[in-house]
């Protein structure tokens, strides 16, 4: 198992803020919009350096999406920001008509996705957003795993022409990917090559997958770990290649089982390469208040759960 270490923990939303700061300096077409959550989205540096290119929209997300679409038509590259809950379900129709169907170059960048939003509870813990955005034609969906990858994804989005949904989170998590990584939209990242099982993870679950790999290694299980940061378009080739090699798959995401990464992987495998799959995710329920760690444990979204699903799926191999 390839060794991954970290020297610090940082929140992925700060990676977004750092990416925006860099875009502010190098791309004059980038504008940022926010619905009264500037500090949460870590936009301070961008706003300080580019006050004229920031549009405070107040607590009016639907209008923010429309304003973003209008600015995109005029030639700007709007990054519309809020919490994931308010940047997906609340404005689904606005995104659908004014952004995706209209092909406007709007980047919807959302923080506090999933259970790790923590204490605020289920009203804010969106676990259906990947499903919604995946279902929408023309939409690119990205869920990076740490600070560096989020920063790289943010910067890459400015050069990608078309609607996109970038999802990241609130808590500090290990920074384990390269600071100077090249982010390729739609391209899986091979975290660890292995032969016994493919663990396909996204977002905060990638680090947990690495920890699971270490647990499994001690049991003599050689896990292949793939980071799918771009859920749509899915890197089908990488997944099929890995599943062909290992013969079984475990997916892991901080999202509902319905409609998320696991669903996308199952659809791909069912059509092309029927393979036993076990899935880590929230099973048709809302979240609740608690610390991020408590919630991830209670809902089975951690290394121990991944390892246990791996043991189960290996038994199902023919």
């Amino acid at each position, binding site marked *: 198992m390839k060794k991954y270490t970290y020297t610090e923990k940082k929140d992925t939303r700060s990676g977004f803020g750092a990416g925006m700061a860099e875009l502010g300096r190098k791309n004059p077409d980038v*504008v940022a919009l926010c619905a009264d959550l500037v500090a949460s989205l870590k936009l301070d540096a961008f706003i300080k350096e580019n006050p*004229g*290119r920031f*549009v405070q*929209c*107040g607590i*009016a997300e*639907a*209008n*923010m*999406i*429309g*304003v*973003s*679409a*209008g*600015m*995109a*038509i*005029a*030639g*700007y590259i*709007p990054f519309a920001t809020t919490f994931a809950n308010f940047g997906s379900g609340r404005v689904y*129709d*606005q995104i*659908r*008509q*004014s952004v995706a*169907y*209209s*092909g*406007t170059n709007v980047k919807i960048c959302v923080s506090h996705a999933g259970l790790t939003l923590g204490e605020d509870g289920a009203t804010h813990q969106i676990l259906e957003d990947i499903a919604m955005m995946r279902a929408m034609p023309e939409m690119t969906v990205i869920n990076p795993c740490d600070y560096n990858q989020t920063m790289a994804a943010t910067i890459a989005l400015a050069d990608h022409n078309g609607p996109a949904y970038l999802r990241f989170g609130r808590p500090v998590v290990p920074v384990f990917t390269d600071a100077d990584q090249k982010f390729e939209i739609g391209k899986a990242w091979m975290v660890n090559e292995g032969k016994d099982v493919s663990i396909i993870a996204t977002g905060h679950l990638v680090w947990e997958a690495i920890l699971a790999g270490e647990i499994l290694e001690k049991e003599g299980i050689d896990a292949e770990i793939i980071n799918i940061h771009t859920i749509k378009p899915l890197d089908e080739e990488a997944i099929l290649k890995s599943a062909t090699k290992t013969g079984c798959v475990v997916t892991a995401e901080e999202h509902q089982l319905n409609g998320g990464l696991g669903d996308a992987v199952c659809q791909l495998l069912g059509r092309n390469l029927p393979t036993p799959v076990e899935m880590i995710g929230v099973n048709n329920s809302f979240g609740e208040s608690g610390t991020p760690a408590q919630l991830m444990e209670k809902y089975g979204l951690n290394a121990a759960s991944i390892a246990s699903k791996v043991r189960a799926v290996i038994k199902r191999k023919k």
Partner: protein
Amino acid sequence: MELKQLQDTASQIRRDIVRMVHGCQSGHPGGSLGCADLLTALYFSEMKIREEKKEDGYLSFSRAGTGEDIFFLSNGHISPLFYSVLSRRGYFPVSELASFRKINSRLQGHPATHDHLPGIRVASGSLGQGLSVAAGMAHAKKLKGDNSTVYVLMGDGEQQEGQVWEGAQFAPHYKLDNLVAIIDWNKQQIDGSTDKVMNNRDIGAKYEAFGWTTISLEDGNDIVQVLEALHKAKQLKGQGKPVAILMKTEMGSGVDFMMHTHKWHGTAPNDEQLAKALEQLPETLGDY
């Protein structure tokens, strides 16, 4: 364009509308007819648009519209009007109007950019979104130092959508005095009169309270009055406030049996009704 020409153009556009809706036996003639004079005045007189032509003779359309006045149709269901105006203005062949709402057409039931129909900048139809998009365009023009004007047309029933008021709050906050919102105040919506379905009360007072300057347009089916209101709106530029024109129109205007009722909001005429309608609308520019 002189007044007589504008009136003749509006008459032809009205013919196009009823013929298009008849041709596919679906669509929304009422509001389309009611706003025909406004869109004629905008596209054939008031708006400064790019006149450059492509090799095929049709207008060269730039979606970004830099330096151009821009029109957004928020109440997208009056698409027959929009398509007729765009084709008659030279964006695409009038013959294409025959494809309205039919399979494999660029003229979708509600306006769409998906098939790159020249003249359309954003999809609309799901109500309440156009004002926000127009405000974004107006804000972008301000940032770019582009002095042109952005227009958006909404229905009065559409004012029931919450997002309209988010946009109404945004535009004065950013002092978008390059934005003109026109509300088609025909007092009708699908389920009946707006007073009965969901009383809008004093729409003008609401916009005023939100920080807009309002203009009352008493007869939006009189092109002279429409032009006066549009000129007045342009004169208000530079005063730091967006402008709302409350435009009273008659749904179905120009076709007697389609007026004074909400029945023709989304109903197509049969052969007999079409003939009766066309008798009232002189063919001035040649049917498609």
